[in-house]
């Protein structure tokens, strides 16, 4: 064989190998497997990481970038305030994603995205490449919407404890230090915000704690909304039957300022109020990395996406899920919803890498449980079907529903749900 012939054969063989390696590699930037980088290790990001590996049969290289070393669940964390759960019950390692599924873990905070070069920069890790980027940054409080709140937070006088952090222990300590007869104020921002039933569950848990240990204490709920946003009838009935002397619910009360030194809250319309311990939840928007990179194109707060594959309306090959997106009608910002979106997105990306047609009928399921005290809970559930004509998700008629009454059985189901979904995302 002449040298020229051999070289031709070698080149042909190399070419065939490249083709034979499949579309996974054609989509990638070189001879390596397609790279998906995920920013944010919450319900959406962690689930996406695991299911990209599972659905692709390990053919995608997945990196999960998360600033925290461990995952702390926001769902169920209100039980800590009711003294029926501990933080250790809600804290989990990410190691299962690495050890069982081969997800690469990068502990760092993403601070910059180069959409042209497809690179992400963290505080310590620079130039992390991607073929597809998934943003699951959760939500961020807008401190400036309540005057004085940032200062109160900086001075460690007011804690939100709304994002699955150890702040829940600081809020618990504040409650524990209250004198019998003092007032706890919980303020709720206008919808949308993360976990619609969450504030009402929190009020119930604090009331349950007071009823047991400080029966003269009060829970004052200042709600910027017209009414209780989720399971309203059940919550209010339970409060009147069990916490009538403790919970004072005031709708259409929007908090606009706080003086944490004097312990005074300012309201948009009503007179100022004094408090002893406050848990002020300001309005929220998408997490910082989405906001700072210009992806929050809806009201400058939330990220608009193409619901067929959750691709950003602002940046190609960037997909966003969870609390950060502008949801479809009646789509809640919940952990379960982020978990479901992540699976739909993982399948969509696998299909795209394989040049398969899009899923003609993706759907999402959601369940949110709320504990009323340490014994009983209720739920809200729904199924959301993608409508390809209107390019959005719609709640399937008859599927959406709530509990008629809180029950011990639903509390058991809620605890089962938590164990299953934590395992589903991390184990």
């Amino acid at each position: 064989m002449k040298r020229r012939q051999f070289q031709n054969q070698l080149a042909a063989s190399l070419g065939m190998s490249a083709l034979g390696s499949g579309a996974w590699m054609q989509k990638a930037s070189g001879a390596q497997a397609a790279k998906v980088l995920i920013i944010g290790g919450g319900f959406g990001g962690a689930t996406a990481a695991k299911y990209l590996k599972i659905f692709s049969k390990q053919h995608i290289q997945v990196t999960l970038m998360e600033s925290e070393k461990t995952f702390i669940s926001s769902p169920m964390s209100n039980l800590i305030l009711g003294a029926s759960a501990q933080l250790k019950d809600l804290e989990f390692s990410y190691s299962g994603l690495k050890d069982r599924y081969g997800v690469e873990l990068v502990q760092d905070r993403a601070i910059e995205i180069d959409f042209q070069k497809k690179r992400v920069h963290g505080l310590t890790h620079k130039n992390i490449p991607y073929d597809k980027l998934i943003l699951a940054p959760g939500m961020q409080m807008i401190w400036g919407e309540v005057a004085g709140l940032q200062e109160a937070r900086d001075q460690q006088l007011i804690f939100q404890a709304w994002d699955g952090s150890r702040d829940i222990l600081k809020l618990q300590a504040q409650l524990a230090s209250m004198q019998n007869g003092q007032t706890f104020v919980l303020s709720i921002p206008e919808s949308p915000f993360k976990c619609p039933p969450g504030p009402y569950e929190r009020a119930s848990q604090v009331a349950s704690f007071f009823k047991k240990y400080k029966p003269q204490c009060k829970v004052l709920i200042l709600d910027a909304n017209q009414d209780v946003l989720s399971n309203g009838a059940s919550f209010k009935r339970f409060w009147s039957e069990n916490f009538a002397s403790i919970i004072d619910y005031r709708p259409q009360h929007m908090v606009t300022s706080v003086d944490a030194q004097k312990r005074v809250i300012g309201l948009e319309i009503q007179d100022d109020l004094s408090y002893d311990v406050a848990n002020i939840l300001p309005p929220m928007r998408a997490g910082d990395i989405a906001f700072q990179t210009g992806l929050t194109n809806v009201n400058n707060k939330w990220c608009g996406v193409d619901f067929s594959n959750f691709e950003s309306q602002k940046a190609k090959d960037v997909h966003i899920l969870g609390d950060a997106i502008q949801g479809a009608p009646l789509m809640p910002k919940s952990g379960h919803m982020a978990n479901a979106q992540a699976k739909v997105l993982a399948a969509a990306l696998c299909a795209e890498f394989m040049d398969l047609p899009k899923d003609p009928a993706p759907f999402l399921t959601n369940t949110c449980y709320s504990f009323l005290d340490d014994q009983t809970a209720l739920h809200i559930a729904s199924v959301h079907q993608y409508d390809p004509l209107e390019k959005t998700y719609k709640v399937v008629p008859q599927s959406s529903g709530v509990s008629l009454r809180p029950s011990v059985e639903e509390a058991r189901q809620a605890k089962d749900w938590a164990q299953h979904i934590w395992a589903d995302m991390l184990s």
Partner: protein
Amino acid sequence: MHQRPTSWLEPKKGAFFVLALYLFVLNAFSQEAPKIPNLYERAHASLCLSCHTLSSLSQGRDKDAFIKQLLALQMSPKKDHVMSQIARGLNQDQIIELANFFTRQEGPDL
């Protein structure tokens, strides 16, 4: 002028031969793109795993029983039962798809 006979067994060219053979074999094994069968069936079924384990949904059931159970949940008079509400959100095709996945004889494979 005397010329040495060419042989593929010569060390230099032998190395090329081995390399070519390796690439040929590699190519033969990698002709097909990685298979990801039933992608959407698996994705749809995975939604159930937010609340259930794979084994609890698959063990000891046949397809008909699986379908009947979901239909019974759809028709349940307990309108506020969480699984009845979820089941009512599934259409016939989705129920059959889930039944096919979870009751496959060789066991469900995500």
